[in-house]
């Protein structure tokens, strides 16, 4: 079966410490003022004292039907056979169409390179057999990554056991980040 790289994020295990954001900045030399990943904080929802709060980490969803790809006039944005969506800097002209097209606001124009920039799944780490920086450092074991088509992967096992959702499914991009909101007591072992 083909490889389909994606993320599973367990929101119930996220404490919004943002270690993932700093790890990504270090690993990928993301310029100050921009970020390739994020954690959204709902703030206290409800009326005092009955309130709740949710934290939702995210980054490029490496969509099955990426809207950034279809609007790219030069073919700079491309999807690899393993599903990872990348930008070829040699082809990117910095027109920002893709930045506008992304329903998840996952892209920005890198002021140093002048090119569209976003999460690369830490490809340089994957090639060394390492997990992406955000996954590696996550204190709560909230972020997971792997091959969604491989039944032995952590992400597949998590999706088998727990209900999950995607963000903005209406956008029709078929994002490859799945969110689990229920408690996950133990992280299954896997690739």
């Amino acid at each position, binding site marked *: 079966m083909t490889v389909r790289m994606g993320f599973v994020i367990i929101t119930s295990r996220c404490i919004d410490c943002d270690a993932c954001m700093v790890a990504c900045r270090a690993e990928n030399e993301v310029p100050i003022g921009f970020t390739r990943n994020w954690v959204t904080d709902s703030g206290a929802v409800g009326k005092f004292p009955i309130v709740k709060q949710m934290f939702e980490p995210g980054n490029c969803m490496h969509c099955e039907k990426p809207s950034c790809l279809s609007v790219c006039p030069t073919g700079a944005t491309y999807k690899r056979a393993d599903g990872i969506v990348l930008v070829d800097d040699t082809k990117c002209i910095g027109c920002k169409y893709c930045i506008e097209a992304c329903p998840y606001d996952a892209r920005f124009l890198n002021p140093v390179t002048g090119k569209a920039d976003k999460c690369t799944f830490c490809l340089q780490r994957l090639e060394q057999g390492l997990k992406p920086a955000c996954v590696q450092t996550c204190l709560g*074991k909230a972020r997971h990554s792997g091959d969604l088509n491989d039944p032995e992967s952590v992400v597949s096992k998590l999706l088998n056991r727990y209900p999950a959702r995607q963000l903005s499914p209406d956008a029709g991009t078929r994002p490859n980040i799945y969110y689990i909101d229920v408690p996950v007591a133990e992280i299954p072992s896997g690739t």
Partner: protein
Amino acid sequence: MPKIYTWDQLFSRRQFIKGGVAAAALGAAAGSGLLHPKPGLGDARSTVASTLSGTKYVYTICEQCVWRCGVIARVENGVVRKLEGNPDHPNNAGKLCPRGNAGIETLYSPSRVKFPLIRAGARGSGLWRRASWDEALTYTAEQMKKIKDKYGAKAMIFNSTDNLSQPFFETLLKAYGTPNYGTQRSLCFNSMTTGFLYTYGVAQPGTDYANCNYMIFSGRNLAEGISNIETQEMIDMVARGAKVVVLDPRFTKTAAKAEWLPIRPGTDLAFFLALINVLVNEKLYDAKFVSQYTQGFDELTKEVATYTPQWAEVQTEIPAGTIRRIAREFAASAPAAIAHPNWRTSNFLNSFQAERAIAVLNALAGNWAKPGGLIPDQSINTAKLGTLPHPSYPAAVGMRLDGVPWQFPMVPLAYGVLQVMRDNILTGKPYQAKGWLISRQNPVLSIPERQKTINAIMKLDFIGVIDIMANDTAYYADVILPESSYLERYDGLVPIGDEIFIRQPVIKPLYDTKSSLMIYKELAVKLGLGDFLPYQDEKDLLVQELKPYTVSLEELERKGHYRVPNFKEDHSKDFAFQTSSGKIEIASGIMAQMGKKAVPTWEAPPKPGPDEFYLLTGKTAQHSQMFTQDNRWLLEIFPENKAWLHTTVAKKLGVKTDDMVIIESEVGKIRIKVYVTEGIRPDSVFMVGGFGHVSKGLHFAYGRGASDSALHKSLADPISGSSALSQTFVRVSKA
């Protein structure tokens, strides 16, 4: 005439960009395309110190807070590119928090002090000249000798905070002979440590999160005050469905994972007394444990008779039914149930009593040394390092300026009362302090009533600061002795259980800086006290510390840690309580001796007046106390502190999020942005501490947010010496 520098010149961004290091960093960044494949490294664990295409991995220990996590640093062609958690380190199990991940920015910060500086204008003028190490150390030693000769060693104050080389700073202070030593303890957890010390004879018992089924936090916010492995364990605990209760007037990120009880500030004591009341009245305590290991239960029974849940509801504003339910749930989970010892608790003068009540509640649960309960002191089960021989210390002559023990007879000598020490620089009583040597601490921002601290500094003949950055206290110093950052230096070794860990230089120092180990040593030599720190250099010291073991320093450097073979844990002393009775003292022998009520008792906290609010302070996961606010990577995720106001309060004031307000206490006034939320009691204002820096040497932190220490009143609990930071009341108005 030497060149005089202003702060702006010393710490300009331009100067940094021009520097060779930055050029190397930028060059490296430009050269490494994301798709450029690198040699396969496999698991980072097994490839440490391997050198492949100029890349090496070095084990060390983090210092972005005081928790000491294991780090593996990736260094490419002399530039530190990535820090990752050491999976074999017990403090963090392979993970780094945001601060740990941002250590690279601390290393390469333009705000680093790059060479020794001697003041070249009035104190606080911001005029400096570059000095050689020899001149700066000679100058420091001369000032310290002059003070000792003229006024005695006692006129010199030493200050430091929790760090790996602190024991060697303490050796220097003892060799110098002053009784005056200040640490962060009284600003942090004195009430907890004394409360537990006087109950169990153990100042800081551990907590077995992994097996605990019921946890009550009342001043420990692990999601925002990150202690790496404990935070991980707390998250796991919540995930496996253990009950977590959080008492906090503010809806913290820990509370977001738990049952939140928005307790009235200062009344945690009433809550715990009522829990004890229920356990006693309903006979839900561990009677066998209580009779075997404790004393004073009968006295407790009498004392808590009136502390009913109904009574506590009036104090705490938590419904009596909720209090009773929690008491029953807690008892049902015992002994795998913990009322966490916390750190600052509610931060009121009655916090010592609150900690005593918490300590006693745990005893009633019988959770001592049981799975899921409190963990006895493990120092006996920690590998011992080799010690360095030194001459006997001179007697430290004179009363202590912090009032211990003459004003605070119950504060353990090692803890001290820092805020009182500062006050007595100003009063000149019982004698006038003349000098202050501060290593990696920032009293201007850490002690309540900032202006008083600045005034105290201005009164002194000499003030010297050892730090990596031009912090706010360094700004007012006469001399700054610049320390190498934690990624550039050795420190004393760290034993944890049967393992010994090393902090070692990941790269050579970028600037003309030294390790604190060598600064202390060389200063000692200039003071004629060199024999007290008998090492030639850092490696010589570490070799001496390793003497009891067969491992070489080189091997320790290569592997990052050493496991002592055949180390046997000794639990025979787990129930040998170091109290006057040898038992867990529900009724404290020391309290009785001092003529005070021996069992935990109610002390009503003061309430704010009309139009006043409680001022609450606390932590954020993205910063450490007052020393990371200059880190740009952390400012990206937490740029400034804001004053939390409840929606109804904001509406009344006519402000919305990000509008400015003025907050005034009895002692100070600040301007700060507002954060409007339903997650705080309407009678309280909250702000994260550590912002509002006054040093222009802190390039990116200067002018951001506001300092809680500008507002805090200086209060010291007469029993524990703990500062009562939340016992400051404020008025808020639209700016």
